[in-house]
């Protein structure tokens, strides 16, 4: 019985495509946005929804917050914490398709 468990596990432990990990990483980064902007980026209340923005609009907004071109309460600080390549990946994941 024990050996059956082992074999079953070993088959699951086979490395799958490397894209899997990249996908999980981008989702993990994007999950940092969803804590305030809501599940799937759909917010209730005063915080804006971000699921209605295109990836391009998200990238522009984050760049403008990071440079303080666009005034914010906390988004300037948050935006400066994410490197542009990460912002681009998050924007593709969260933005309106």
């Amino acid at each position, binding site marked *: 019985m024990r050996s*059956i*468990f*082992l*074999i*079953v*596990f*070993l*088959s*699951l*432990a*086979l*490395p*799958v495509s*490397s894209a*899997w*990990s990249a996908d*999980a*990483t981008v*989702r*993990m*980064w994007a*999950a*940092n946005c*969803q*804590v*305030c*902007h*809501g*599940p799937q980026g759909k*917010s*209730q*209340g*005063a*915080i804006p929804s971000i699921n209605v923005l295109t990836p391009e609009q998200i990238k522009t907004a984050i760049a403008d917050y990071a440079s303080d071109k666009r005034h914010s*309460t*906390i988004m*300037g*600080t*948050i935006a*400066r*914490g*994410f490197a542009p390549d990460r912002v681009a990946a998050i924007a593709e994941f969260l933005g309106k398709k």
Partner: protein
Amino acid sequence: MTSKSINASRRSFLATTTALGLTATFPLIGCGQSARVVVVGGGFAGATAARQIKLLAPDIDVTLVEPNKTYRTCPFSNSYLAGLQPWETLAQGYGGLAKAGVGVVHDRAVGLDAKGRTLKLASGTSLPYDRLIVAPGIDFRWGKGITADIAETAIPHAWKAGPQTQLLHKQLRAMDDGGTVILCPPPNPFRCPPGPYERASLIATFLKREKPRSKLLILDPKAKFSKQALFKEGWAQHYGDMIEWLGPDDGGAPVEVDPKTRVVSTDFEDFQGDVVTFIPAQKAGALADSLDLRDEYFWCPVNLLTFESKRQPFVHVIGDAAELPGMPKSATVANTVAKGCAAVVVALLNDQKPAPPMTTNTCYSLVAPNHGITTTGVWEATETVFHPLSKGISPLDRPASHRQKEADYARSWYTNICADVWG
């Protein structure tokens, strides 16, 4: 990946492993279906981890173990104390997680068989796991005249939202106008660093409205506290001299509390309170002791890149109980750490190297119902510390419109994080 492709790979791998005669260097997965993750603790951290694993990898079997059917959030419990929202608004249930495919078991974890990778429950049931995630929350280091019994009946800490929060609410309403509320914050580190000062603020909101001749005295063992300048600015603006803060240099560090007379003694003076809320020094929740996850410094040491316990292999510790140098013990950190941990666990179960967890803190406090303030930060884990990528705090001397905006954002944050965790 479809179930068909998993089955195909299982078959081919079965042949390979048999041929190679491979044995047990890999973790065991029970009952031959899918990887099993058990999460213990249904607060901000645990409930988030359970849901996120299911979102990332629907094939993984996720079970959440939580004794209570209803969770009451500490965030916004100060608004309840102020009479700004009813008790029921702090309640969260587990139906949303069940709908998301998480198996919810209302039971208490009592022990661990680390070798057999099995969690023992109070009911006698055992749950096998491939990875265990534990979110023990906090417990208290009693002393200075305060015991668990005294906290429950006379001097509430109300630092886990529950009956003590309701007791404090009742005591505030029973107090005569002109009375003194004494609030004793804990020493560092503790759950929600600005929380005691938000509590002072919102109790003052209540007093100003209903018992305007009353005072609120903060007797603090710390010389500095979170968002100090912002709180002091707001207190002067909204409450005049109603709130007085004494730190250790002002003779304010509490030494002893007499629960019968409600006198709080410091090295220099005795202070008579009518209502006293004393928040004791803290440590990882009792669950951390049952599962042997805590060290002599009161918290649970973990590998910062994986949140795996330094004391128990295949067990991850998240939430306020985890020792995460550089990060505050806030609900948002609990949520983003849990998401990082979910990504790590899913990667490890797929035999992949996880990316370093990236976490965010957005910590709102209300100085008054229309006056919000924040601290914000973004971090990335390294082996030794959570490295700050950016940090910020609300500026001083901002117009009322800015404070109003942050108060509105605070309420929206609460709704959204609760939907993200339990919804």
